[in-house]
C-alpha cells in the first residue's frame, strides 16, 4: 500500500504539465505596454503573412521567402540588427485581422489593404504603403471578355475576408448587373476554382492574380483584364495605441525607399560610408547624431540596406523581371521616376 500508485504519479505528471504550461506563459510574459518592449523581451518579432510565392512562401527547406517577408526581416534588423529574429506565421485573409487584434502578431505583412474602416472600426494603424495595387479580374481568355461589365451573370470567385469581396459587390451594384459569387477562404483552392471552371473569373488584388496566373500550368490561357476596380494600397498593419512601434515600422520602410533614391544597395553600401554628403552620413550612421536623437541604433538604416537591401532590390529579387514572376514596377517606382514611393527626409 505504500508503493506509489498510478494515481499519485498521474498527479505528479499533471503538476509537471501545469508547470510547463506556466513556464511557457512566464517565458513570454511582459508588462502591458509598448509592443517594442514585448518584442525585445521575447527576442523575436511575430509577423502574420499569407502564402503566395513571390510575396510570401516557405521554400522547400522551410525558410520563408518573398517581398513582404523581406520587410519583416528589415524590421528585425531595425530592432535586433538580425534579419532572422523574426518569425512568420501563415494566416488566412479571414483570420488575420482578428488575430492581430487578439495579439497573436506584432505586425501583419500579409498584403492588407489600408481602408478607413479598418483604421477606425477595427482600430489598426497602418505603416507606409509598401505595394500599390488595384483590384483586377482574371478570366479565361476563351470567354472573350474584355471588361468587368461583360461578366453579367457570370460566376466570380472571391476570397473571403478581403476587400476584394466587398469591392466586387459594389462594382456589380453600381453597374446594375448580376454575378454569382463563389466565396473561398483557402488560398490554393481559390486558384483551383478558376482552373477547374468552377468560376468564370477571379477577382482579387491584381498582383495576387498575376502571381497566381504565373503559377498556372497554362498561364497563356488566362488574361488579367486591364481594368482596376479599386485602389489597393497594401501596407503593414499594427494594433492601435502603440506609437513607438508605428514609428519603427514607418521608418524601416522609408529607409529602404530612401536608400534606393540615393542608389545605395546592399552591394555598394560600404562605399557610401565614405560619402561626403552630410545627409547620407546621417542616414548611414557615419554621423551618429541622428540615431542618438531618435533612440535607435544610428546604423539601423545601414544595417537594413546591408542585410536586406533597398526597396528596388527587394522588389527585383522577389517579383522583378529577373524572376519567373516578372512584374513591372508600375506605381511602385520612386517618385523621381513617376511612381508613388516617397520617403520623408531622414533628418
Amino acid at each position: 500500500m505504500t508503493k506509489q500508485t498510478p494515481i499519485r504519479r498521474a498527479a505528479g505528471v499533471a503538476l509537471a504539465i501545469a508547470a510547463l504550461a506556466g513556464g511557457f506563459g512566464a517565458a513570454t510574459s511582459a508588462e502591458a505596454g509598448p509592443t517594442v518592449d514585448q518584442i525585445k523581451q521575447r527576442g523575436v518579432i511575430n509577423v502574420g503573412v499569407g502564402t503566395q510565392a513571390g510575396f510570401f512562401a516557405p521554400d522547400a527547406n522551410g525558410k520563408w521567402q518573398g517581398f513582404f517577408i523581406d520587410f519583416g526581416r528589415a524590421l528585425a534588423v531595425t530592432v535586433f540588427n538580425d534579419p532572422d529574429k523574426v518569425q512568420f506565421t501563415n494566416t488566412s485573409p479571414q483570420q488575420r485581422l482578428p488575430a492581430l487584434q487578439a495579439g497573436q502578431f506584432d505586425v501583419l505583412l500579409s498584403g492588407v489593404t489600408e481602408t478607413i474602416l479598418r483604421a477606425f472600426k477595427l482600430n489598426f494603424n497602418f505603416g507606409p504603403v509598401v505595394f500599390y495595387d488595384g483590384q483586377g479580374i482574371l478570366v479565361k481568355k476563351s470567354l472573350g471578355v474584355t471588361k468587368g461589365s461583360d461578366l453579367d451573370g457570370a460566376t466570380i470567385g472571391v476570397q473571403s475576408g478581403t476587400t476584394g469581396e466587398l469591392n466586387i459587390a459594389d462594382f456589380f451594384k453600381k453597374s446594375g448587373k448580376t454575378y454569382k459569387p463563389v466565396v473561398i477562404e483557402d488560398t490554393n483552392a481559390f486558384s483551383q476554382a478558376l482552373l477547374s471552371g468552377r468560376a468564370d473569373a477571379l477577382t482579387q488584388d491584381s498582383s495576387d492574380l498575376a502571381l497566381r496566373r504565373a503559377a498556372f500550368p497554362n498561364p497563356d490561357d488566362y488574361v488579367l483584364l486591364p481594368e482596376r476596380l479599386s485602389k489597393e494600397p497594401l501596407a503593414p498593419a499594427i494594433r492601435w495605441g502603440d506609437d513607438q512601434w508605428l514609428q519603427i515600422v514607418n521608418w524601416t520602410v522609408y529607409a529602404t525607399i530612401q536608400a534606393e533614391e540615393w542608389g545605395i544597395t546592399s552591394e555598394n553600401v560600404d562605399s557610401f560610408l565614405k560619402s561626403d554628403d552630410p545627409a547620407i552620413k546621417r542616414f548611414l550612421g557615419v554621423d551618429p547624431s541622428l540615431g542618438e536623437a531618435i533612440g535607435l541604433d544610428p546604423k539601423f538604416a545601414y544595417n537594413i540596406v546591408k542585410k536586406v537591401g533597398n526597396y528596388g532590390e527587394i522588389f527585383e529579387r522577389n517579383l522583378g523581371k529577373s524572376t519567373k514572376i516578372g512584374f513591372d514596377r508600375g506605381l511602385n517606382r520612386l517618385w523621381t521616376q513617376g511612381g508613388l514611393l516617397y520617403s520623408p527626409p531622414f533628418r
Partner: protein
Amino acid sequence: MTDARALPPPAAESRLAAVRRWWGDHALAQAVGLAAVTVVLAVLTANVVASMRRLGMSPNFDYLAQPANFDISESLIVYRAGDPYARAILVGLLNTLKLAVCGCALATVLGVTLGLLRAAGNPLLARLVATYVEVVRNTPLVLQLFFWIALTRMAPPVRQALEPLPFAYLSVRGVYLPWITVEGGAIWPVAAFLLLVALLVHEIHKRLGRPLSATEWLVAAAAAILVPAGWVWADGVRLSADLPTLRGFNIVGGISLTPEFAAMLVGLAVYYAANIAEIVRSGLQSVTRGQWEAGRALGLHRARILQLVVLPQAMRVITPLMTSTWLDLTKDTTLGVLIGFTEVTAVIKTSANNTGNAVETILVLVVVFLSISLPVSAAINAYNRMLARRGVVTS
C-alpha cells in the same frame, strides 16, 4: 457514491432538507469552491472586456443591424450584399441546417444499407464494406473533404455539362435538375390536404385492424388527386416546369446543388455512414442469439424476426448512439469553412473580419451551436435514464 442518491427520500421532507440532501457532503467546501470558480470566471471576463477597451473596442452587438457588404455563394432566403449582418448570419445558419438535415438523412440511409449489406452473408461484400469502414474511419475527415471537393472540380466545365437525363445537368458548377414553379396562388393547402388524407388512412387502418380494401384505396386516391386539382383550378394556381438551360455564362433555372454543398454532403455522409454502419452492427450484435432462435421456434421468417423481435431491442442501443452521431455530424458541418461552403461559421468569420467584433461574433457562434446540441444531448440523457429505469441497460 451512488448510495445517497439511490436512497428513497424520507416521506415528509421539507423543501430545504431536500436541497440540503441534493447539495450533499462538504457543503461549505463546495460552496467556497464554486464561488472561487465563479470569481475566476468573472475576472477573466472582465479582463477580456478590459483588453478590448485597450484596443479601442467596446463589446456590443450593434453590428448585427449594420449592413454586411459582402455576397454569399448560396442562400435559402433572399439575401443581397447590403442586408444587415443578422440576416447574413441567418443565411449561414440556414445553410448549416440544410447541410445537417440532408447529411444526417443521407448518412443514415447509406450507413444502414452498409450495415445490412455487411450482414447479408456474402463474405466478399462484407469484406469490402469492412474495408470501406476501415479506410474512412482511419483517415482525417478534413482530408476526405479535400478529396471530395477536388473530385467535384474534375467535373466537365459548364459548356460541356453532362446531360445524363433530359434537362438534368452535371458540371463543375454543380448539379441542375428541373423543378416546378408555382405562380398565381398558394400551394400549401394542397400539401396540408395530402397530409390529412395520409393521416386519415393511417387512422382508419388502425381502427379497422385490417388492411384497406381496393375500393377504399381507390376512394382515398381519388380524393388525393381530385381535390388538389380542383383547388389548383379554382385558386388560379399555375404550375410550370422550370427547366435548367445554358444561358450566358451559367446554367440557369431549375434547382441546383452547388459543388461545395455536394462535396460537404457526400463527405459527411460517407464518413458518418461508416460510423452508422458500425452502430447498426453493434446494435444487432447486442441482441442475443437466443432471441433469434426463439423467433424461429415460433415459426417466424428471418425478416419478421428482425422486424418484431430483434430491431425493437437493438433500437435501444442504436437510438442514443445514432442521435449523438447526428449531433457530431451537425457539429462537423463547420468544416465547410475549409472547402468554401458558406455555413454559419464562414459568415461569422467574415463578419468578424469586417466589423472587428471578433469576440462578440464568436460568442454568437457558441450560442448557436449550444442551442442545437444541448437540447439533443438532454434528450439522449433522458432516453438513457428512461431505459435505465426500465432496467434495460445499466446506466
